[in-house]
């Protein structure tokens, strides 16, 4: 889809996903790495646990569908090469500290002077300006500053993050959307612009709009293991089974009530609740609980009944019955179970990418959506550092083999 367009990807480990997504959508993405390879190649886990720049699974996860060149952006000889590439590119993505690239003569204003149509995307923790723009940051800091962290974890322990860092992925995916919106504008105006993505604002999406609690004059939601406290209502989402856990949305109201009724019918058939309980008003119960018409102890009683039923079942049986009966129950899967999922296999989700440098193929998460006319293709496995130096410097910029050798000798590329 985006095959006519070129992306220069200058991002650090914060922003790598953005270029990969544009690459998935067809753009020619050139990862510009520091000579010797980007620092992100040092992040584990590693293939066979051998730390090596070409074996970082962190790198693999966020760099397919990119080509790689190496270039010393600080050197006097390196900058003109970048300028030449900028003149031939449609997007530039970077995730340095605000002002860092500008200090090296590579800020938006400098590069827009070379290519006014350039869409220049900056991914930063807090945005380009403001009182926290210069803050030191990490995944955990972003989640703390943006709201998701306080909502996650057990109520008797500190707030908890997801073990796979999430903060900058929200920002990077947001940045891909932002880049394409600016691109649509460029189709009309012929002009690029500076896209300023704040990771803090991006992760606020994960508060499910409860970040508006204060202006709504509403009470705060509070974290609870496997659920959440909404006012006095303690919603339990995680339930133990015979052999692990399932998630059950055991709630009421117009949308969820019919599902809950079907669960209670099943429980009734197996003798886990009486007829009066089965026949409660599952549509109206939510309002009744919220207004005090039904005491919250009734909700606790119902949750106890459900718990006593669920513990007698296996994850597989619950999943099967959820599909057959139309219940809001899903297994809590391990990563291994996800990788072995029948659903994903049936949809041909996984994609084998050949790594000739290691003499093996590996199974990658597949296209994020299925396009009927322009399917996402995986054209490049994650590149080794500088793998496409010749192709880019010789074929695209017209540098001679001697010139390339000289630049290599001086450590510029």
């Amino acid at each position, binding site marked *: 889809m985006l095959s006519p367009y070129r992306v220069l990807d200058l991002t650090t480990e914060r922003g790598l996903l953005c270029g990969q997504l544009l690459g998935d959508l067809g753009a020619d993405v050139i990862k510009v790495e520091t000579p010797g390879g980007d620092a992100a190649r040092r992040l584990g886990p590693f293939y066979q646990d051998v730390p090596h720049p070409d074996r970082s699974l962190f790198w693999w996860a966020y760099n397919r569908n990119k080509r790689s060149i190496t270039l010393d952006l600080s050197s006097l000889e390196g900058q003109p090469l970048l300028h030449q590439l900028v003149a031939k590119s449609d997007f530039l993505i970077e995730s340095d500290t605000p002002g860092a690239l500008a200090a090296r003569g590579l800020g938006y204003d400098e590069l827009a002077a070379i290519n006014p149509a350039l869409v220049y995307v900056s991914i930063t923790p807090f945005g380009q300006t403001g009182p926290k723009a210069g803050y030191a940051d990490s995944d955990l800091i972003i989640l703390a500053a943006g709201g998701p962290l306080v909502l996650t974890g057990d109520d008797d322990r500190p707030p908890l993050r997801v073990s796979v860092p999430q903060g900058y992925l929200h920002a990077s995916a947001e940045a891909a959307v932002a880049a394409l919106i600016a691109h649509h504008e460029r189709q009309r105006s012929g002009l690029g612009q500076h896209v300023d993505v704040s990771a803090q604002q991006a992760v606020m999406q994960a508060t*499910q709009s409860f970040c508006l609690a204060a202006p709504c004059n509403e009470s705060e939601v509070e974290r609870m293991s496997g659920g959440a406290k909404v006012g006095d209502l303690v919603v339990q989402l995680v339930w133990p089974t015979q052999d692990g856990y399932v998630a059950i949305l055991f709630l009421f109201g117009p949308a969820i009530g019919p599902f809950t009724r079907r669960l209670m019918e099943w429980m009734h058939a197996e003798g886990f609740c009486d007829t009066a309980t089965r026949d409660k008003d599952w549509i109206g119960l939510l309002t009744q609980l919220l207004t005090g018409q039904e005491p919250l102890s009734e909700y606790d009683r119902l949750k106890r009944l459900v718990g006593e039923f669920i513990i007698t079942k296996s994850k597989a049986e619950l999943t099967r019955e959820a599909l057959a009966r139309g219940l809001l129950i899903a297994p809590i899967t391990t990563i291994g179970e996800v990788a072995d999922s029948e659903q994903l296999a049936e949809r041909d989700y996984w994609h084998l990418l050949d790594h000739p440098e290691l003499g093996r193929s590996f199974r990658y998460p597949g296209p994020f959506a299925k396009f009927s006319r322009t399917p996402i293709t995986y054209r490049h496995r994650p590149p080794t550092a500088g793998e496409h130096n010749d192709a880019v410097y010789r074929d695209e910029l017209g540098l001679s083999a001697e010139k390339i050798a000289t630049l290599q000798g001086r450590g510029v590329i």
Partner: protein
Amino acid sequence: MAHALPLAGVHIVDLMWVIAGPSATRVLADYGATVVRIESTRHLDTARTIGPFQDGSPGPENSGLFQNVNAGKLGLTLDMASDAGREIFLDLVRWADVVTESFSPQVMRSLGLAYDTLQQVKPDLIMLSTCLMGQTGPMANFAGFGNLAAAISGFFSLTRWPDRAPAGPFSAYTDYVSPRFTAMAILAALDHRHRTGEGQYIDQSQVESALHFLGPALLDYTVNDREQTLAGNRDPHMAPHGVYAAAGDDRWVALAVQTEEQWKALCGVMQQPELARNPRFATLTSRLAHQDELDAIITDWTRTREALDLETILQEHDIAASVVQRLYDLYDDPQLQHRGHFVPREHPLHGTITVENSRFILSRTPAWIGRTAPTLGRDNHEVLGTILGYSAERIAALEAQGVLQ
């Protein structure tokens, strides 16, 4: 607003509901797309039943969530199952560049409104269907919400203390991840159509999109055959790294020490310079090996201090730290204020309501939230009269027939 918005002239007929889908079209509306949200008064959008509510009072026009994810859109209430409703919908398809829907698979087909039908009406139509598991496969009809998709895609098992049951990320996690993929899919398909005149059908599984946020863990399994060990708040590349108790009830500071310089600076800030010389903490490897001890030392220092004071002094020394902001803190956050993140708008029922702004800023053509989310049926006349050119008599007749509900 002095500029033409980037997506001005893009027409979207939006049948998506609850959180994931509408969050995607909200972004497109922010940047100028005309989005017509079709709703049913008989089968209310679940988002209208989810808080936060204005003044804590539940009600279909009071949901801050609904108002937030639908700001900037037009609202049409329509009985799609009626013949007249179907005709109106097809007229909107003729007007549209993009049709989006997030029902369970089969719903559009059972309504006789699958892509092949719509394409006959509008040959270059882009249609996107988004649901939990995708349109095909043995679990295609698995119904549910984003919290179930988060469970089934592995996020819950990766969000827990090693000695406890899975805590899970807050609520419906894939609903916050997948909207970006929805929006970029639409934008890329629009670009393709702009260049080639070709529309297409897009089948988005929210699980398949969200798995791109678990890449390293999935590869660790498919490549190394290893389930990632659970880390709580720990990180293999940083120590100390965690969330530490501050003074007050449920007040915490997040801290991430990334370099040796930061570690020495932290020891200095804590006025314990001897720690930096202690061989148990002298290198990242040794600190990772003694994290319990390290965390206890840091907690002794943090627990008597205000979280904001800790953030301030640590950041003054270039150490990554932040108050674990509570929801009410966000509204007062000076950085978010600087970014204009909270946007007040006049509302016919509530005086003023507040929604979130775009999560990014375009320097030349920033977002503009042109109207609040629709109250039920608010824009029926604008959609049918102004967009479709129906006469006032025809609209009145449709109203009388009960089609517009």
